[in-house]
């Protein structure tokens, strides 16, 4: 059994490595910038969703306010860059750090809340953040911040036409988020989080410090999301509160994980790989009609997937595994 387990872990790593390599080679074949753009967004949302999944999927604290951390990452990076000339690379880390600190600060009061009360509190806090930025003159308020793009530069992480550097960064971020999840999954923290999600009281009785576990998950999750936000800001070269802190980001971070399989290693990646291209393509190719058909298709797909596969798309893959499990059960029952 131990062997099985180790083999599964190794197999996950190998599959991920293969996928990452495949993805890294994709630009050799995909020259179309529009498609590249979709790939970048897909990778970015996969990374964001993977990060969201740490807190909400593994630790069970459903947050619909992660746009706050996304926005903080974006704003920290760009404010530091435009006001103080700090390179985005440092801004990114600073943004991540600040987001993690805020997540922990918010954790103190928030983690006492349960269920809907918690979810609504996360929505509300992100909304407050949005309103504050919308009215914060120094940070550009509603006008946002336009990032001066002066030509290709790795140092400033900006590129005029080439999407490749962004692509590789997004890929890297996605791999990082995946790897962090993979690593945490078989660590004390990973076990603690899942225990806290399933039954905090029992977890506490087994020596799990529930509160600290939640804090840890929140910090890791917020940090990664903020780095994603910083990336998005650099990628877009323009930010305003609505476009980096709006509620839609919170949803878009959660959706891939939910569709793919919440609290699973592969769910977010799988969900993003299907959802994001679908969103983009329905908008691009049927959105121009002005008749809302794209919305109908998009919404109906979400409903259909939620209803048909409540465990997410990964459950399709685990069918085979489930069969094995039944076999084990039979063995166990007839023992």
């Amino acid at each position: 059994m131990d062997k099985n387990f180790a083999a599964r872990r190794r197999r996950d790593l190998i599959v991920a490595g293969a996928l990452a390599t495949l993805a890294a080679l994709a630009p050799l074949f995909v020259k179309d910038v529009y498609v590249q753009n979709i790939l970048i967004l897909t990778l970015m949302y996969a990374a964001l969703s993977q990060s969201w999944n740490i807190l909400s999927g593994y630790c069970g604290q459903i947050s619909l306010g992660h746009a706050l951390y996304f926005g903080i990452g974006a704003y920290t990076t760009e404010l530091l860059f435009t006001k103080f000339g700090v390179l985005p690379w440092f801004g990114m880390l600073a943004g991540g750090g600040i987001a993690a600190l805020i997540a922990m600060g918010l954790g103190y009061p928030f983690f006492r809340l349960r269920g809907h009360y918690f979810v609504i509190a996360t929505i509300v806090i992100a909304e407050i953040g949005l309103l504050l930025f919308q009215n914060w003159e120094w940070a550009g308020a509603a006008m946002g911040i336009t990032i001066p793009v002066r030509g290709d530069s790795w140092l400033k992480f900006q590129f005029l036409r080439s999407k490749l550097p962004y692509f590789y960064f997004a890929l890297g971020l996605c791999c990082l988020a995946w790897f962090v999840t993979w690593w945490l999954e078989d660590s004390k923290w990973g076990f603690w989080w899942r225990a806290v999600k399933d039954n905090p009281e029992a977890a506490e009785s087994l020596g799990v410090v529930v509160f600290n576990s939640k804090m840890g998950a929140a910090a890791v999750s917020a940090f990664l999301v903020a780095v994603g936000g910083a990336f998005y800001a650099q990628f877009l070269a323009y930010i305003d509160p609505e476009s980096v802190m709006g509620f839609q980001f919170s949803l878009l971070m959660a959706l891939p994980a939910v569709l793919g399989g919440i609290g699973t290693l592969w769910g977010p990646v799988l969900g993003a790989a299907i959802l994001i291209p679908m969103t983009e393509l329905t908008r691009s190719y049927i959105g121009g009609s002005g008749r809302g058909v794209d919305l109908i298709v998009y919404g109906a797909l979400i409903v259909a997937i939620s209803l048909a596969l409540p465990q997410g798309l990964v459950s399709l893959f685990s069918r085979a595994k489930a069969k094995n499990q039944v076999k084990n059960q039979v063995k166990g029952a007839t023992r």
Partner: protein
Amino acid sequence: MTALLETRGVWQRFGGLVANSDVSISVGRGEIVGLIGPNGAGKSTLFNLIAGVLPPTQGSIWFDGEDVTNLPAAERCQRGVGRTFQVVKSFETMTVIDNVIVGALVRNTVMREARGKAHEVLEFTGLAARADVLASDLVPAEKRRLEVARALATEPKLLLLDEVLTGLTPTEAQTGVALVRKVRDAGITVLMVEHVMEIVMPLVDRAIVLDLGKVLVEGKPADVVRDPKVIKAYLGDRHAVGA
């Protein structure tokens, strides 16, 4: 040598309701102590106080020679208090082995060691064949055993068992009894709540009867079941004879 566990004049009130009043009990090292009493006598509350789910309104709790009254549950677990829940609280979305690993992580921070420990405990409790099954797919009796396994994985000095033998046929219960004995033989002190007198009385070294939040009687099982106060409050006439 001091007792492993001692409660000194413990009170617990919930609003106007008094769940425990002035409960002082002690459990010595290596003992199996049975805690019995009518439903609602405050047994579960006392368990929760000992496990640290909530602090007592008044009084103190001493474990292993130290005052642990104000320590949270997780900290008490680290010091060696393991417990099961009357209403089974497995981690439903995790497999059996993963459930046990959570417990094992208290003493083993290296994953490989924790996993090894968990396998060991599953063997010990006879759940090894079910290691990779989701906890939600276990039948109730297995879930109770999982509760015990999980608590054992924390390598406790004191194990609090809350109705783990409930709902078993007499034969099955015998296996359970054997397991509890095995646990004690491994050097773990056991404090257990149980209703099925036929099973629990031969097993325990000492029985404590709670009624209306107070200690009613305490002593050797044979004496306890003959105590008229116990018969009146708890056993009813028939069982007094039966036991």
